[in-house]
């Protein structure tokens, strides 16, 4: 149960990364000049760099807990390896789902 909670927390942090990435992209699309790098664009980059670093620190703290939790699987090598695969799947997942277009239920084109 505690392991499942940990995985959920890990995934929540992953979502936070994706959310920040989306926000940064949207903000840059709105404010950046496609022909030049403007001070505004640099400011946005700096702002999100700080935000990303915050979430990275959270993730780092989360990883500290992982080793202790995984020790419980030490008696079963398969369970231990499976726990590694679980975390690496979350860690290596991309944010494609968040990027896909979302259709409202009342969209006129939706059959």
């Amino acid at each position, binding site marked *: 149960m505690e392991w499942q909670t940990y995985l959920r927390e890990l995934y929540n*942090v992953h979502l936070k990364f994706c959310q920040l990435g989306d926000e940064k992209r949207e903000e840059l699309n709105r404010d950046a000049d496609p022909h030049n790098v403007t001070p505004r664009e640099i400011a946005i980059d700096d702002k999100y760099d700080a935000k990303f670093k915050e979430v990275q620190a959270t993730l780092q703290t989360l990883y500290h807990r992982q080793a202790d939790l995984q020790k419980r699987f030490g008696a079963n090598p398969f369970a231990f390896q499976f726990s590694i695969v679980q975390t690496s799947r979350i860690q290596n997942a991309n944010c494609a789902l968040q990027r896909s277009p979302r259709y409202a239920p009342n969209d006129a084109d939706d059959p």
Partner: protein
Amino acid sequence: MIFRVATLTALGLCLVSLSCGQISTSSAQTPAVQEATPPDQKDVTPKLNTTAKPKKVITNEDLEPHSAAGTTDKIITGDVSSLLNCDAGCEQQAREFLGYDADYEAEWRMQVVRARRDLIADSEWRGMLSQSIGQHRTYCNFLAQQSQKTAPSGNSWAAQVQRARNAKYFETMGNTLRQGLEMSVNRMNNHIKEVGELSPARAAMMNVQANRIFDRACDQPPQR
């Protein structure tokens, strides 16, 4: 790439033979120190040098004084610390290698946290890096030694024999270095491949680290 591997291979051999040389010299010197005979050694060494200077065969022991000669060691030590860590530039190269452009910043930012952490904790990889750095240094010393052309240039029998001995030495030493280097490269590649299955980001960072070591140009040979 082939050239790089060949260069690496050549470096590897040196390490093996050098370490043997270092062991033999230290074991020979330690008893001498215990017997309190350094003055005798000091007396003998110059005589050997002066008498055998024109015909001297370069041995493994000759490599060691070059590396311990002073300033070059300090330079290499500085390089080592930067080569053992994957700094921001190294991370950026790994990111570009994996194709994480601005659209995939979130994914990269997340993966790099774990990659950094695991990379620091991977003592086996750090050992491989240290070994390959040593091999590179040894190979550079070998190349410097080779370029110094200490063999006599006359047509006398003794000079010809000395030149033949030198050529044989450089060939054997070069082969040894290449074999050891090849083994190191294979070990590193295998480790990178294993890591890459679970953490592509970490594997890419390791790849950059390895390339940085083996792509380095040799420093200028020490001035005599």
